[in-house]
């Protein structure tokens, strides 16, 4: 039991050291900075945004202030229905984070567990699981998400489920191949001959070598999830009640913002998505150098 507690402390220390190493990379630092900005936006949305995202802004005579260009009064202008774009961007950060983080977490957990089990136990368990993963790989991602959202109904949770249910396949494959190569290493044999059971080997010996790559794909998953949600919302398969950047673009597109030259509606949501996804990629560069020291250059 003492050994188990030790192992947990070791893993925690290793995790902390990894995090510090991760953020040594200049890009990772930049990514973190951007992410913090958006986090603040998301958490303090009601305080930062001048209006609610659904609120229709009207002038003194009750007329909607639609299509206002960006000015001192409305930082990013208004939509066709007189809603504040800046406010929508701020509130949109909440949706992005919620969906991105939750989906990524599910992806990481499912993918890692399945990959670990499949890779470690091998044999028929591995065969069956890998057949299943091949099957999952054959399902077209976006169309399936569309179908699932139609079947389950359009809500944020269903979007998260629709994304996670397929996205884990990538993580699973990668984790499994990592486990396969680690399984043959001497330290596993040593542990086994010392009498360690399967569970112990998996969680105490293999896990510390697995979690960097698991984390890497988890970070990727955040970006992919946000991009997918944007796509789904744009097509009309998102949550009709939430405020998301993808939905903003859908509204813009449907109300002919392109031909009407309403650039202040088209650019900001996309830029916001680019920034937040980019920050995850930047952070992942930091992790990649932990996973693969050969890449360390700057």
């Amino acid at each position, binding site marked *: 039991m003492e050994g188990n507690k030790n192992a947990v402390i070791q893993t925690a220390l290793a995790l902390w050291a990894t995090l510090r190493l991760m953020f040594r990379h200049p890009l990772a630092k930049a990514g973190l900075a951007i992410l913090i900005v958006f986090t603040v936006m998301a958490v303090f949305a009601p305080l930062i945004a001048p209006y609610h995202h659904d609120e229709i802004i009207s002038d003194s005579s009750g007329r909607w202030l639609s299509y206002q260009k960006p000015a001192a009064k409305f930082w990013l202008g208004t939509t066709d229905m007189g809603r504040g774009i800046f406010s929508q961007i701020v509130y949109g950060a909440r949706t992005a984070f919620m969906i991105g983080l939750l989906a990524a977490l599910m992806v990481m957990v499912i993918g890692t567990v399945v990959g670990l089990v499949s890779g470690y136990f091998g044999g028929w368990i591995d065969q069956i699981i890998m*057949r299943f993963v091949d099957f999952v790989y054959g399902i077209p991602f976006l169309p399936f998400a*569309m179908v699932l959202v139609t079947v389950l109904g359009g809500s944020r949770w269903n979007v998260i489920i629709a994304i996670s249910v397929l996205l884990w396949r990538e993580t699973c494959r990668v984790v499994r191949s990592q486990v396969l190569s680690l399984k043959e290493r001497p330290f596993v044999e040593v542990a086994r001959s010392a009498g360690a059971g399967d569970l112990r080997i998996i969680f105490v010996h293999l896990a510390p070598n697995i979690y960097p790559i698991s984390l890497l794909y988890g970070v990727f998953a955040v970006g992919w999830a946000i991009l997918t949600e944007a796509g789904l919302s744009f097509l009309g398969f998102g949550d009709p009640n939430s405020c998301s950047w993808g939905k903003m673009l859908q509204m813009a597109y449907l109300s002919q913002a392109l031909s009407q030259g309403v650039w202040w509606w088209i650019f900001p949501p996309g830029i916001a998505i680019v920034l937040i996804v980019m920050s995850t990629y930047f952070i992942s560069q930091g992790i990649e150098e932990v996973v693969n020291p050969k890449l360390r250059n700057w």
Partner: protein
Amino acid sequence: MNVLRFFSRRLFHSIFVFLALLTFIFFIFRLMPGDPTALFISPEMAADAIQEIQKTFGLDRPLYIQYFLYVINVCRGNFGISYYFFEPASRVVFEHLWNTLVLTITAMCLSYLVGVLVGTLLAWKRGTLFELGGMVSVLILRSAPVFWVGLIFLYIFAFKLHIFPGGSMAETGEFYGGFLEMVLSWEFLHHLVLPLVSMMCYFSGLPVLLTRSSILEVIKEDYVEMARAKGIGARRVMFRHVTRTAILPVVTAFATAIAYAFEGSVLIEVVFSWPGIGRLMVMSMLGNDYPVAQFAFMILAAMMILMNLLADFLYAYLDPRVVVQ
């Protein structure tokens, strides 16, 4: 004949996966809101047409019989009648499929060509500011939603500058004579540019990153050093030894990327009103044209499996070690 066994095993495997997918599609579409018979029957159909369909698909029979009939109908290519087009769903889907293929395959081929070249360039310029700039640019492009890039291009080049058309595959009211005529006409190409470039912006990212990291790894290998020691010349070392092995992961990524590109094309086709299978799927889902939606989904799934299979074959051909496993 290791090779033959390897190929046939993979083939059977893929067929098996496809069958599993068919079953999956069968059940998941049944879960759509509304009456399951709405999957095949629209209230607007004539009474005898409804009868016909009921019989073919066994809509009044128990579930397992419906499944059996379903499989048979798939083999026959019979997927019901589209509610919107009033044509067999299969025909509708295949017509749109060609449009998607032209766009997608062209986009992926160009993306990978450009991507490999840029990736090699970045690997050559290792450690310079140029490389850093290149990497950051690639990451930015990969962070931009592909449909948003399309919107931006549309806005700038179609609506502001009027250089390119605002969407669809042809001017309204115009039709192309045949497939070949269409593909070779200026008008088609004119309409193709913006959606093509939009897709390329996103999809070039992966080959650039993959090529670069692959080359950087391979160049350190002992056999590359040995090749240099043999005095065969720097260029030959690069092409015959470095690139040949480095390109392996890129080639396999290419095969699977085409599968993913079909999905990406969904978004592009909607933005540009390009009449492809992706847009068809969206419209049919939103418009409850279930026969078409089902079949479109099935075709997309078949494409994914096919592409994964081709990727496996390609990899085995390029790296003889794989076949031994």
